[in-house]
């Protein structure tokens, strides 16, 4: 299983892997916002966390469709389905590798983009923390969509449409946790805890559902 993790990580870094696509898209989205909104620093600081979260959400949806499709195209998926190892463990490890290659760079890039949005240290720290906790949930939800659309040649948009409604709670609690951290009266911990709960919930449900979908998609 460790072999699978490092192989997927290697694949996403090599040519055509798409590890950088997500983070570049994230940067593009967030970098154009100040030009569009104008030089109102207070406004930028106020909408900053929300923009960062929306950017990260959309960026993590990019490339999700290739999670199982690439495996299917070269026949690797057949071999994964045949093994004694439960398929959901394989799916879980693939999700973990996918998050490490595409989700983690978003968390690391967030402080730089926070500066673009005139956010202070506290807001940047809170955004990083919530992204760190919340983006794995998007990957696990996305794995289900990717598994459902695995046999479709252009499943990319379909995956996003399938996944987005389920990812909305992640966005809501992610952003509200950041605002709770920077605005005094609201407590920070409850939304963060709910965000963690969502991630843990989908870490269990996602691989099970994705494995079931993959079993039925084989032909």
């Amino acid at each position, binding site marked *: 299983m460790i072999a699978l993790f490092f192989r997927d990580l290697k694949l996403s870094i090599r040519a055509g892997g798409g590890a950088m696509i997500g983070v570049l898209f994230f940067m593009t989205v967030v970098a154009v916002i100040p030009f569009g909104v104008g030089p109102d620093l207070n406004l930028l600081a106020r909408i900053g966390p929300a923009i960062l979260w929306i950017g990260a959400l959309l960026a993590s949806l990019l490339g999700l469709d290739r999670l199982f499709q690439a495996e299917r195209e*070269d026949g690797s998926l057949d*071999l994964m389905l*045949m093994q004694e190892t439960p398929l959901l463990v394989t799916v879980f490890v693939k999700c973990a590798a996918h998050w490490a290659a595409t989700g983690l760079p978003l968390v690391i890039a967030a402080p730089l983009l926070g500066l673009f949005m005139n956010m202070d240290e506290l807001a940047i720290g809170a955004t990083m923390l919530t992204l760190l906790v919340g983006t794995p949930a998007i990957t696990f939800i996305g794995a289900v969509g990717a598994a459902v659309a695995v046999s479709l040649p252009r499943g990319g948009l379909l995956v996003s449409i399938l996944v987005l409604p389920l990812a909305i709670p992640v966005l809501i609690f992610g952003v509200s946790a950041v605002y709770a951290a920077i605005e005094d009266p609201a407590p920070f911990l409850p939304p963060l805890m709910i965000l963690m709960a969502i991630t843990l919930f989908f870490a269990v449900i996602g691989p099970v559902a994705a494995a079931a979908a993959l079993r039925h998609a084989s032909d």
Partner: protein
Amino acid sequence: MRLLAEGLSARRGEDLIFNDISFALSAGEALVVTGPNGSGKSTLLRVLAGLLMAESGSLKLESGPPEMRHPSEISHYLGHRNAMKRELTVAENLSFWKDFMGDSQGGSGKGLVEAVEAVGLPGIAHLPFGYLSAGQQRRMAMAKLLVAYRPIWILDEPTAALDAGADKLFAGLVNAHLDRGGIVVAATHQPLGLERIKELRMTGFSGVGGGMWHDA
């Protein structure tokens, strides 16, 4: 160890591809599945590999490991696609499958260097898989059969894209596997040059008698 198939039939969409296929294979025996295009050879092999549900019939392994759920768990499947990543080197591909698949009980896989030598391509394992020619890629996919031990080999057109020398080399690999008590099921157009084979001739479309099998 005996692999038993009884009354297998499979469907793709609406159509029955084959019907009532039965065979029994003991350790050291090979089954060669022949027949025209579209007669259901690949479908049969995918059913054997557990990748397609059989419409009816059963597939059993006598005296296999007790905790096993399906014979596919102790099978290798070499399909039309090689299951190797173009971006990774041959050595990375092979060592991944070696680690990921592990060995079934009762044997152990060869080392990477040994497996690459066995398919006649020593010295190019450091190249990305995508740089190799179609024939070389196929040979390296065969090396995958050697790095992780599985008693049952399910091979779909294994010698497509291979030259005459490689055909002979492959027959040698399969015979060696049979000598060690393995079971081989292969779909093919070309004569593989195997000994001790049974032949299953797939004849037709949709339900008109699936096929006949006889000892060759």
